[in-house]
C-alpha cells in the first residue's frame, strides 16, 4: 500500500458500514411474506409505489455507468462516445411508456416474474424462453463488471492497492463480500432502501461539483474550450483527432445509433424488468416515465465532469503506471475537493455502484432459477428451494462479472455496457413485439436471435482497440457493405428483425406448427384489483395471504 488517504478511507468505510447495516435492517422492512419465497426475496413482495420505484429505477439505471464510464468516455474521446448517453436517457422514457404497462399487466395476470416467463407463455416455446433467460444472464455480467470497474477506480484513487495483483484486487473483493452478504440476506429490499441513501449522497456530490468546480476551473466557457482543444489535437497512435467535441457529419450515425440502441436495450435487462414488475399497478411505471428525466439532467451534468477533468489536467495514470481514463472523475474530486468531501463523493460512487450491482445480480438470479433451474433441472422445486438456488445463482453471476473485469479491456469501461447491450437487444423482438402481436413465429424468433447474437459477438470481437491491441475494443462498426459507422447492437437488431420477419412469412406459408399462446388479449390491459390479477405468493401456493400492499 502506498500513500493511502486516511481521511477519505475512514469516511468511505463509515458510510459503507452504515449502508450495510441499513441493508440488513431492510430485510425486516415492509415485509409482506416470508423471505424464503422467490417473490419476496426477488421482487420485494411486489408492492412498490411511484416514489420508491423512482428511487429503485434511478438506483439501477444510474450507476457507475453514470459516474465513471460516461465521464471517462467524455474525458478520453468526447461527445460521440460519451454524450450520446444524454439522448439515450431522454428517449428511453417515451419508449417504456409505450410498452411497459402491457408487460406489467400480462405478467401480473399470469404470474410472470421474468421476461423469459412471458416469452415462454406467449410463444409456448421453452427453447425461446431459455434463449431469453441465457441472454439476460450473459448480458447482465458485463454490466455488473462495469460497476466493479467503477469501484476499483475509487479505491485506486484513495491509494489502495498497488502493482501486485493481490493488493490491487483486495478492496474489490471486500466490497463484493459486503454486497453479496446483504443481497443474500435481504433480497431486493436492501437495494431499494439503500437507493435513498445513495441518491441523497449523489445529489449532494453533483450539486457541489456543478456549483463549485466550474468556478474553481475558470468557468464553463473555458472548460468547454479546453475540451475542444484536446479533442482536436492529433492522437499519436492513430493519427486522427483525439475525439469529437461536437460530432462531425460522419459521426452522426454513430451518435444516434448508440443512443437508440442503448435506449431499446435498457428495459430488456432483467433488472429493469424486475424493478417495473415490483410496482404496485400498471401505471406506476408510466408516471415514473414522466419524473425519471430528472436523472437524465444529472447524467448530462455528470458527463461534463469529464471535460472538467480535462481542464483541471488531472493525472489519470493508474498505480500500475498505465493511463486509465476511468480515474478521471475520482482524481478530479481528489484534486479539487477537500479530503473529507472527496471521501463522501467516493462513498457515493462506491454505493452507487453497489446498489445496481445488487439489483442486477438478483434479477439475473431470478432468471436462472425460474427459467433454467425450474424449467429444465428440477420441475417440482418448492418455493424455498427456488429462493435458495436464486441466492446461490446471484453469487455466481457476480463471479461471472469478475471474469469480465479481469478478462476485458478496461480502458473504455463504457464498452462493457455496450457489449451487454448488443446481446440483450436481441431479445427485443420476442419480448416487446410480442407484447403487441403474436404474429412472429417461434422458430423465426429463435433463428433471428441466434444469428444476431453470433454476428454481434463476432463483430464486437473484431473491433480492436488501437492503443491496447485488445479485442472487444469498441462497439461501433460499419453496417455491412457500407461506410456508415453505427452501434453494432443496432445493426444486429436489424439483422435479427429481417430474419425473423422473412422466416415468419416462410414458416406461416409452409404451415409449420407454432407454439400455443397461453395469454389472453385482455391480460395486456389488466390492472391491480382486476379479476385474475394475482400476487405471486398466491400463485406459488405460498403460506398465507399477503394482503399488506399498503
Amino acid at each position, binding site marked *: 500500500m502506498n500513500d493511502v488517504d486516511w481521511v477519505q478511507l475512514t469516511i468511505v468505510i463509515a458510510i459503507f458500514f452504515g449502508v450495510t447495516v441499513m441493508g440488513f435492517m431492510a430485510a425486516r422492512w415492509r415485509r409482506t411474506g416470508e423471505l424464503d419465497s422467490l417473490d419476496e426475496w426477488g421482487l420485494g413482495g411486489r408492492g412498490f409505489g411511484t416514489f*420508491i420505484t423512482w428511487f429503485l429505477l434511478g438506483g439501477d439505471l444510474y450507476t457507475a455507468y453514470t459516474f465513471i464510464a460516461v465521464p471517462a468516455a467524455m474525458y478520453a474521446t468526447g461527445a460521440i462516445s460519451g454524450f450520446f448517453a*444524454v439522448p439515450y436517457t431522454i428517449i428511453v422514457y*417515451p419508449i417504456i411508456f409505450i410498452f411497459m404497462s402491457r408487460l406489467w399487466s400480462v405478467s401480473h395476470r399470469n404470474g410472470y416474474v421474468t421476461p423469459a416467463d412471458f416469452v415462454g407463455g406467449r410463444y409456448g416455446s421453452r427453447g425461446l424462453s431459455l434463449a431469453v433467460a441465457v441472454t439476460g444472464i450473459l448480458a447482465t455480467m458485463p454490466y455488473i463488471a462495469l460497476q466493479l470497474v467503477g469501484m476499483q477506480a475509487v479505491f485506486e484513487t484513495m491509494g489502495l492497492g498497488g502493482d501486485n495483483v493481490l493488493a490491487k484486487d483486495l478492496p474489490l473483493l471486500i466490497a463484493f463480500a459486503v454486497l453479496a452478504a446483504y443481497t443474500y440476506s435481504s433480497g431486493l429490499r436492501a437495494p431499494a432502501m439503500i437507493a435513498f441513501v445513495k441518491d441523497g449522497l449523489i445529489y449532494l456530490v453533483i450539486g457541489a461539483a456543478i456549483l463549485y468546480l466550474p468556478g474553481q476551473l475558470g468557468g464553463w466557457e473555458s472548460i468547454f474550450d479546453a475540451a475542444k482543444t484536446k479533442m482536436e489535437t492529433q492522437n499519436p497512435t492513430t493519427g486522427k483527432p483525439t475525439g469529437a467535441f461536437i460530432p462531425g457529419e460522419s459521426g452522426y450515425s454513430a451518435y444516434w445509433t448508440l443512443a437508440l440502441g442503448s435506449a431499446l436495450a435498457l428495459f430488456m435487462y432483467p433488472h429493469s424488468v424486475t424493478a417495473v414488475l415490483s410496482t404496485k*399497478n400498471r401505471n406506476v411505471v408510466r408516471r415514473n416515465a*414522466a419524473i425519471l428525466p430528472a436523472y437524465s439532467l444529472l447524467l448530462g451534468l455528470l458527463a461534463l465532469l469529464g471535460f472538467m477533468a480535462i481542464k483541471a489536467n488531472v493525472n489519470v495514470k493508474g498505480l500500475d503506471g498505465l493511463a486509465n481514463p476511468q480515474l478521471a472523475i475520482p482524481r478530479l474530486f481528489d484534486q479539487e475537493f477537500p479530503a473529507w468531501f472527496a471521501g463522501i463523493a467516493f462513498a457515493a460512487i462506491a454505493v452507487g455502484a453497489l446498489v445496481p450491482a445488487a439489483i442486477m445480480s438478483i434479477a439475473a438470479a431470478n432468471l436462472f432459477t425460474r427459467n433454467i433451474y425450474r424449467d429444465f433441472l428440477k420441475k417440482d422445486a418448492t418455493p424455498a428451494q427456488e429462493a435458495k438456488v436464486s441466492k446461490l445463482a446471484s453469487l455466481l453471476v457476480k463471479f461471472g462479472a469478475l471474469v469480465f473485469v479481469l478478462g476485458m479491456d478496461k480502458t473504455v469501461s463504457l464498452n462493457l455496457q455496450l457489449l451487454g447491450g448488443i446481446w440483450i437487444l436481441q431479445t427485443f423482438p420476442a419480448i416487446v413485439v410480442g407484447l403487441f402481436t403474436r404474429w412472429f413465429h417461434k422458430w423465426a424468433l429463435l433463428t433471428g436471435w441466434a444469428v444476431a447474437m453470433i454476428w454481434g459477438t463476432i463483430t464486437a470481437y473484431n473491433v480492436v482497440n488501437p492503443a491496447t491491441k485488445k479485442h472487444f475494443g469498441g462497439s461501433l462498426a460499419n453496417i455491412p457493405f457500407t461506410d456508415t459507422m453505427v452501434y453494432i447492437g443496432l445493426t444486429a437488431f436489424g439483422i435479427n428483425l429481417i430474419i425473423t420477419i422473412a422466416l415468419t412469412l416462410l414458416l406461416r406459408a409452409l404451415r409449420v406448427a407454432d407454439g400455443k399462446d397461453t395469454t389472453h388479449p385482455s391480460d395486456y390491459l389488466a390492472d*391491480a*384489483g382486476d379479476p385474475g390479477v394475482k400476487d405471486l405468493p398466491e400463485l406459488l401456493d405460498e403460506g398465507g395471504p399477503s394482503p399488506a400492499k399498503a
Partner: protein
Amino acid sequence: MSKLAAVRPAYWIAGILLVLSVIVPLLVSTYAKDEPRLWGFPFFYWYQLLWVLFSAITVSISYQLVMREERRRRAASGLDAGSSKKEGNR
C-alpha cells in the same frame, strides 16, 4: 372488445407526442453545432439538456391523456376503476 379496440384522439395525441420525443432528439444534424452558446455551453450541449425538460413535459401530458382515457374505458367495460385511486402516495 370492439369498443376497447377503437382508438381515441387522446391516444393519437399521446402517441404522436411520444414518437416526437423519441425521434427529434435523435436528429443529430439539427443540433451538432457550437453556436449560439448559453452560459458558455455550446448549443450542442445545452440543447440536449433542454430536451430533458421537453421530454418530461411531453411524457407528463401523454400520461394525463392516457390515464383519463383508460379510466373511461375501464368504467365503460365495467371493470373496477378503483385501482387508479389506490395508486401512488408511497
